[in-house]
């Protein structure tokens, strides 16, 4: 599967309070949360983002609170995937559990700029600008996590289990 969209660039330590501030945690509906995605990091993000777009960020993306509302908001607003230099561990597992594609690639992050058109091959974990001149390989997922991703998330993975 290929994901295509334009890049929205963020720095290091983008935390979950910025991704979805606590004032919105009195709801859990994805569509509601989407309206406030990245609000305290970039107020205009929800107006600029288009379905398929990609968030590209530095180190430690999603640090802070465990709120699953963060990847839910990102997924619901139409972002197709997040590429980061590294992910905070709770955000990492939340994204995998809900089926939001994430890719770790410090090299890609260095090169990709705001507005770039980017393509991501999910199965191969390959990232490139749409000119396809250079391909960056994201960090491989361990088999167990690949199984969850393939199923579409942890609950889908768990369905049918006794």
């Amino acid at each position, binding site marked *: 599967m290929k994901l295509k969209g334009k890049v929205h660039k963020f720095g290091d*330590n983008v935390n979950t*309070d*910025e991704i979805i501030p606590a004032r919105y945690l*009195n709801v859990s509906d994805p569509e509601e949360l989407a309206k406030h995605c990245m609000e305290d990091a970039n107020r205009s993000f929800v107006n600029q983002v288009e379905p398929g777009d990609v968030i590209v960020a530095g180190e*430690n993306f999603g640090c*802070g609170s*465990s709120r699953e509302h963060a990847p839910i908001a990102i997924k619901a607003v139409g972002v197709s995937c997040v590429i980061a230099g590294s992910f905070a561990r709770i955000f990492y597992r939340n994204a995998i559990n809900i089926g939001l594609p994430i890719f770790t690639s410090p090299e890609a992050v260095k090169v990709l700029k705001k507005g770039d058109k980017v393509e991501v091959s999910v199965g191969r974990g390959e990232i490139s600008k749409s000119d396809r001149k250079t391909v960056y390989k994201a960090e491989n997922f361990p088999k167990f*996590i690949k199984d969850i991703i393939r199923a579409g998330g*942890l609950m889908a993975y768990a369905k049918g289990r006794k």
Partner: protein
Amino acid sequence: MGYTITEKILLSHVPGAKTIAPGDFIKAKVDLCLGNDITSPIAIREFRSLGRKKVFNRKRIALIPDHFLPAKDMKSANQAKMVKEFAEEFGITNYFELGQMGVEHALLPERGLILPGDLIIGADSHTCTHGALGAFATGMGSTDLAFAMAFGECWMKVPETIKLCFTGKPRKWVGGKDLILHAISDLGVSGALYKAIEFTGSTIEMLSMDDRFTMCNMAIEAGAKNGIIIPDKITEKYIKSAIRKYKPSRKGYKMLKSDDDAVYAEVREYNVSKLEPIVATPHLPSNGKPVSELKDIKVNQVVIGSCTNGRISDLCEAASVLRNRSVNPNVRLIVIPATQDIYLEAVKEGYAETFIRAGGVFCTPSCGPCLGGHMGILSEGETAVATTNRNFVGRMGHPKSFVYLANPAVAAASAIKGTIAHPADL
């Protein structure tokens, strides 16, 4: 080769496993899983999607609506109602309605629900607090909680361990909060990413349980998977007292320790005998500075409370600074004991009266302003000193507000002076 305490606990929770190593992916059995009023609604929705008729074990789930209760608005009331109804429908023993409710990471140890050797997962990032009892405790997401409620297990990667060794006798006014802020400033907010932090050393061995909870609470702020302290006589005294008072259904515990030949990814040593109280400046918990370097910073609000520093010794320390003194007329002092037991003890000891007579307010247990929820939101341009655990942009309210993290004594002194202050300078 030996194991760290974290490795031992994880190994003992993987049925049939004989060995364990950092990097291994495991499915671990859970002793207790927990959620609050903002993380449980999503967990409940996901759990229900599995169509199961029962939870894995009614006694091994804790639901604590501590974030937005007493219900701060209609939407929060709806979420709280959803959690209560789920607890009733599935017979969740450890559901804490308002009246019993307290800040989850202060309440659960108090009730004897966390024991040394346990594996605890929680839909709250500060679940790592419970490592202070020699348990493996880690924060996860709502879907992880749903999975655990259904199957009594969770997936995770075995972390390497960073050993932080503290020696030296801390000076007056320096406690667990300063030690952890010092460590986080050294490590950075991702310095312990994916790792366990083991807090050791003669300083740690002398710390009270309250200070140990404070330290493990903030392990996540360095990116750690868990924080842990080897259980000892101090731990056992606390556990036995909690079990005696609250008679939890589980009473068996394991006092484990790291082997002498355990392997650590990294060891850092801190001699804290000259350490000053540390204050983390906006907007990262790793921006720790000695309090003496922060002069003339005007303060609008002081919050003393939270799962970090809302326990009785925190209130005692704050009260000792505020006794017979007055809060600066430009400062709002908000004191929030973390549980009903702590509340009552604070009243009995006279701390509540001290706070009120000084010009502050004394509130019912709640996470409240820590995450910018309620009970003390900051307006544009305002500055708070708080005994809480995070100071990211907008954490306590307006995106253009500022939060400085400090220990209870510095917070109290700042409330009196109206600027960030060392209690010795009053």
